[in-house]
């Protein structure tokens, strides 16, 4: 059953995977097992995306399916789910930019790949990034931006982190819209990632899990 379940989710069969979720819950199956299978399904989605078979529509839609599965499973869970996290990442869209589609996909793909993600949202002022890096003691920061004003906002954010003495133990990745490796150099970040799976690969590499 669990192999079918993983495939149904990976193939984005909405009605079937939700029906099977209900069936498994009705059969009193351990809800943690269902969540584990959905995590495996998302892994397949991620690798299909990285392999060029899936694109943004499939990623977004798989997120929708996962949300619905979680809602169905939640009432059956005893106590809070404490999944072991492999690392911490703070992400946010820099000041002056309110784009969140890419940001939220990165959030969700990092999360399903085992990271504890602190998503600061959009139009994030520099001070908020600094506070989050201090509070979470993260070693990875992801800066998102879609338009050209993000170039300077990213540069200023990185410079401020340097001034605060937080840069040394911090790996910074950038991504989104008009970002590229030229902007990465300009902003003095460590890496540019072209999509959400690149963010996952970079984060895994930086925590030594790749």
């Amino acid at each position, binding site marked *: 059953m669990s192999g079918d379940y993983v495939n149904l989710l990976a193939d*984005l069969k*909405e009605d079937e995977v939700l029906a099977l979720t209900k069936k498994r819950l009705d059969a009193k199956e351990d809800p943690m097992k269902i969540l584990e299978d959905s995590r495996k399904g998302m892994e397949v989605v991620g690798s299909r995306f990285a392999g060029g078979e*899936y*694109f*943004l*529509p499939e990623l*977004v*839609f798989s997120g*929708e399916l996962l949300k619905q599965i979680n809602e169905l499973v939640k009432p059956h869970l005893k106590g809070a789910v404490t999944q072991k996290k492999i690392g911490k990442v703070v992400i946010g869209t820099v*000041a*002056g*930019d*309110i*784009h969140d*589609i890419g940001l939220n996909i990165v959030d969700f793909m990092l999360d399903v790949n085992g990271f504890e993600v602190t998503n600061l949202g959009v*139009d994030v002022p520099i001070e908020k990034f600094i506070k989050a890096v201090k509070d979470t003691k993260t070693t990875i920061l992801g800066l998102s931006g879609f*338009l*050209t*004003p993000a*170039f*300077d906002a990213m540069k200023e954010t990185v410079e401020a982190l340097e001034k605060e003495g937080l840069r040394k133990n911090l790996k910074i990745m950038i991504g989104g*819209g*008009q*970002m*590229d490796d*030229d*902007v990465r*150099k*300009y902003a003095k970040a460590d890496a540019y990632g*072209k*999509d959400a799976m690149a963010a996952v690969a970079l984060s895994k590499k930086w925590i030594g899990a790749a």
Partner: protein
Amino acid sequence: MAREWSEMTWQERREERFKKWLNPPGVKFPSPAIEKTYKERATRMIKAFRMEIPDCVPIHLAASSFVAYNAGYTYKDLLYDYSKVVPAWTKFVDEFDQDTADAPGLFPARAYEILDYKVNKWPGHGLPDRSTLHNFVEKEYMNADEYDLFINDSFDFGLRHFTPRTWGAFEPLADMPSFSDFQGIPERLMMMCQDPRFQKLFKAIWKASQENAKHQKVMGECAQISLDRGFPPLMGGIMLAPFDTVADLLRGTRGSVKDMFRQPEKLLETLEIITERSRESAVAMTNMSRSPVVFVPTHKGADAFMSVKQFEKFYWPTFRKLLLGVINEGCVPMIVIDGSYNEDRLKIISELPKSSVVWNMEKTDMAMAKKILGDSACIAGNVTAAQLYTKTPEFIKEYVRYLIDTCAPGGGYILALGSGIDKCDPANLQAIVEAGREYGVYN
């Protein structure tokens, strides 16, 4: 005797529009020399569109809010202080020797504020004052279960659903019964005027229109400044690919993506309706303009958004139909490809009638674009915003040289930016012009 419009081929219609562009009705140039310059520039563009060989590669710089920073102002300054617009624009057109110039692409921020426009945020209105561009607020302005409303009566959907959701002042429209009956309209309008909520709305429209008029006056002055310096206007009309209309404006990216899986038929049916409406409006705008060009910013058909298979199903068929519709009316669609198009996508778009459109690339590999589209259409681009921000004038000149060497042979190339630009070293923008004039001469 001149042939009737209805009997002309699309090429003949386009020639009529080119004639109007070359000899703009009602325009009196300050001197014969300026008129000559205007015609030389317009001819350069026209030859590039037709994929013929002009005297040199035409240059087009869509500079957006760079115009403010180049003059020592901020974007917010130009949005709110009309007195700064003309000096900033004058400085820009005097400094950069390109082949077209319209007026700065500023929207009437004060009028939008009065009417509580919700689809944009800008410096001073939802974004920090120092922000250098406005941002679009993407939301599901049409709900997933409202496709039928749109399909059955898109005007009514716009009046009672879309407008009140996107303009706060128009909220009273959401509570009105449908306006679709052919009779009783005067009575309905009287009743509205008696209603205090609509009285408030009408007052707001009046007040906003006063601000809009001031804004338009300044934009008109800028357009005149461009003409007086011999710059042909470029932007005649504007339209979006039908899928982008849904994914940007109506359902948002998330909403449209869900619909691709859950209700593809409704989505496709809606795209057909949008195609016809967009064609009508783009042609009407171009008819009112001096320029034959229809500007088409594109977003969600690019490599980073959808697969080629999805592009072929959801994006291209209605976009193609829309492009052919405006081409058939003699307009020249100038399509800006945000992000990049890969080989498969370039092959798909290469099937339009020869020399009927211009593809302005942001990050697409220009060598590949020339190889695949070289026999099909004029291409333009692609000095990127990142290059303008982060590189030196020497680098930019070298890159422009590469672009000209790669894209200009045989004609059909316009030297242009990959996107708008807000802030950069003006010397980098100047380097484009210098390199273009130096390396872009055809022998």
